């Protein structure tokens, strides 16, 4: 907040300048949320599945040391080369060293929020390596020079006309063309050439099974598979919390993931990679980057149960109206706001405040993370550690003084009602943050206390 970088409120202001777009963004995401509800309601055991998934993930976090060792040894037996990275820098160096040993300078990548978190693309580009994102939404934001604004729907903030313009410029589609069918067909041709000519592919990992050493990657487009099965070198990158104990647990998670994310019964492809293809090298990088620290924070470790479905974003009234970029971190929305302060409490001090604490995120979370409670707890930690916005700290102090002094409270209430009635311009101006995009309410004639006193005596 005090770093000179724009905070959530300032970035939301930018997004909110175009009211029609805000409405469209809000409605589109609510439409996805509604699809989630419909999909969840088709299964009588939905709540039992959530509870089961939550308990499996609790078990994973409580036994992570042994599961990681078990997974590593089984993956190695399967012929996978396993690497460990303490932080983003080490992760990026490992990827680079693998490519360097093979003299590879161009590669394809399917969706991996971990590589976004580590800023892998920028690092590789600085080292002379070209990275092509192959998920359509990610390719679109890559062409636009932007980060994804949503973990499942990377370009949900973009209108098809803007995408048409980008494709006209980069892929040579006709000027003014904006039909999704036509644009997707153009991207298919463009990306197929990349799949066929690149020797290395990076994928993310949705689940890694300790018992078998296999890992599962879920996509709708098939881009992870096109990349992996055509490459000489497949590099899979995962956070250490992606482990699950048994193969059978996939039955629970695959039932929850896509229904929670987009309302589909399952993603088109749920690919189980166990051994490299004959002649192929398969690498897997296990990344910490702050996860072990979060594991040690009793109030916040539950955030590591996340399976990255994005349901908390689609339902969040703040996310829907402020856009993913306002969170200035790789993972936006409510879950991002409880993950980011662990990495840098000062830089992300604003994010836990970007919430109404309505609890909708917690209600839709497929692994039952208490997201809104953690947001509230982060606020307390951030204020205590001295990272809160000074304006907010002063307002809180004033509020504390007012609320703990009945006579001050009564006078303040009276003054407020008088001002709003007799001099509304004093509050209805741009100096008042509450007036932006809102009308101030009509002040009541009297306070509740005054009303009660009067009516109780009669």
């Amino acid at each position, binding site marked *: 907040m005090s770093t000179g970088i724009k905070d959530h409120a300032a970035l939301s202001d930018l997004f909110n300048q175009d009211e029609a777009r805000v409405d469209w963004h809000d409605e589109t995401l609510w439409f996805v949320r509604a699809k989630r509800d419909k999909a969840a309601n088709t299964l009588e055991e939905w709540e039992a599945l959530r509870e089961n998934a939550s308990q499996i993930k609790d078990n994973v976090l409580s036994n992570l040391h042994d599961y990681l060792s078990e997974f590593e040894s089984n993956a190695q037996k399967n012929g996978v080369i396993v690497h460990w990275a*303490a932080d983003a820098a080490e992760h990026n160096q490992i990827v680079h060293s693998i490519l360097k040993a093979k003299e590879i300078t161009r590669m394809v990548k399917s969706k991996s929020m971990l590589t976004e978190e580590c800023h892998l693309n920028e690092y590789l580009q600085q080292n002379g390596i070209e990275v092509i994102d192959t998920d359509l939404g990610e390719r679109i934001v890559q062409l636009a020079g932007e980060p994804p604004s949503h973990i499942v729907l990377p370009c949900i903030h973009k209108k098809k006309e803007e995408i048409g313009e980008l494709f006209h410029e980069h892929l040579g589609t006709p000027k003014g063309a904006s039909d999704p069918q036509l644009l997707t067909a153009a991207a298919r041709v463009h990306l197929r050439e990349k799949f066929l000519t690149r020797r290395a592919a990076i994928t993310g990992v949705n689940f890694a099974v300790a018992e078998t050493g296999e890992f599962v990657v879920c996509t709708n487009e*098939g881009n992870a598979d096109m990349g992996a*099965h055509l490459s000489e070198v497949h590099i899979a990158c995962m956070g250490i919390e992606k482990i699950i104990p048994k193969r059978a647990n*996939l*039955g629970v998670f695959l039932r929850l993931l896509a229904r929670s994310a987009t309302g589909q019964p*399952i993603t088109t492809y749920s690919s*189980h990679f166990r051994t490299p293809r004959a002649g192929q090298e398969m690498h897997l990088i296990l990344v910490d980057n702050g996860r072990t620290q979060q*594991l040690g924070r009793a109030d916040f470790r539950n955030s590591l149960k996340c399976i990255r479905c994005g349901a908390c974003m689609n339902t969040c009234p703040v996310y829907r109206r402020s856009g993913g970029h306002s969170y200035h971190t790789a993972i936006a929305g409510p879950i991002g706001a409880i993950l980011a302060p662990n990495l840098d409490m000062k830089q992300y001090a604003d994010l836990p405040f970007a919430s109404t604490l309505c609890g909708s995120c917690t209600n839709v979370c497929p692994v039952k993370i208490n997201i809104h409670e953690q947001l509230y707890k982060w606020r307390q930690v951030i204020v205590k550690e001295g990272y809160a916005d000074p304006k907010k700290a002063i307002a809180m102090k004033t509020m504390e003084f007012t609320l703990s002094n009945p006579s001050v409270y009564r006078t303040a209430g009276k003054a407020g009602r008088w001002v709003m009635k007799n001099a509304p311009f004093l509050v209805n101006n741009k100096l008042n943050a509450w007036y932006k995009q809102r009308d101030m309410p009509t002040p009541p004639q009297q306070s509740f206390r005054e009303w009660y006193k009067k009516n109780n005596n009669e």
Partner: protein
Amino acid sequence: MSSRAQILARVKENQPDLTVLPADLIALVQYADPVEMFGKVLDGIGGMMHPVKDYAEMIGLINTQFAGLPRIISTIPELKELTEKDWENQDPHSYENVDVAIIKAHFGVAENAALWVTESLMGQRVIPFICQQLVVVVHKKDILSNMQEAYQQIADSVYGFGAFIAGPSKTADIEQSLVLGAHGPKNMTVFVLA
């Protein structure tokens, strides 16, 4: 200390007290007619189901649906009269121009229309992803109701690569408009053998 040792030590130090793995769920969704449900869900995700009584009927439908397409490959012996010979051991990139790939699935799942296919049934891993159109054959008795049953069936079987495939490749990344054929097959036909 290596990063491996450091990460494992920190995990051990910071992980909470052990909680037990929950028991497997019971009493999960069962469909009276799993094949009908499978067909309905497949239709909803952009695929097409054809129940057929035998390979002869299937061959007739394949001949009509894919007439004139130059490159049709299959891993199913019963279909070898229709399809290209000796295609299996080529460089994976060479399948880029495959028009139709016809493969078998171990089983299908009614709740999500997913079909379980391992690499022994694919010929090569890339086949079901790189072809323009995908056809999958599954036996009627092998349509299960839900994913827990699916993993009971998979159990501890050994495969190098396996995938649940549910419908054609798709994307809705542009304004949530659904488009079939993002990178892989533009459509998917499932023949359910009686």
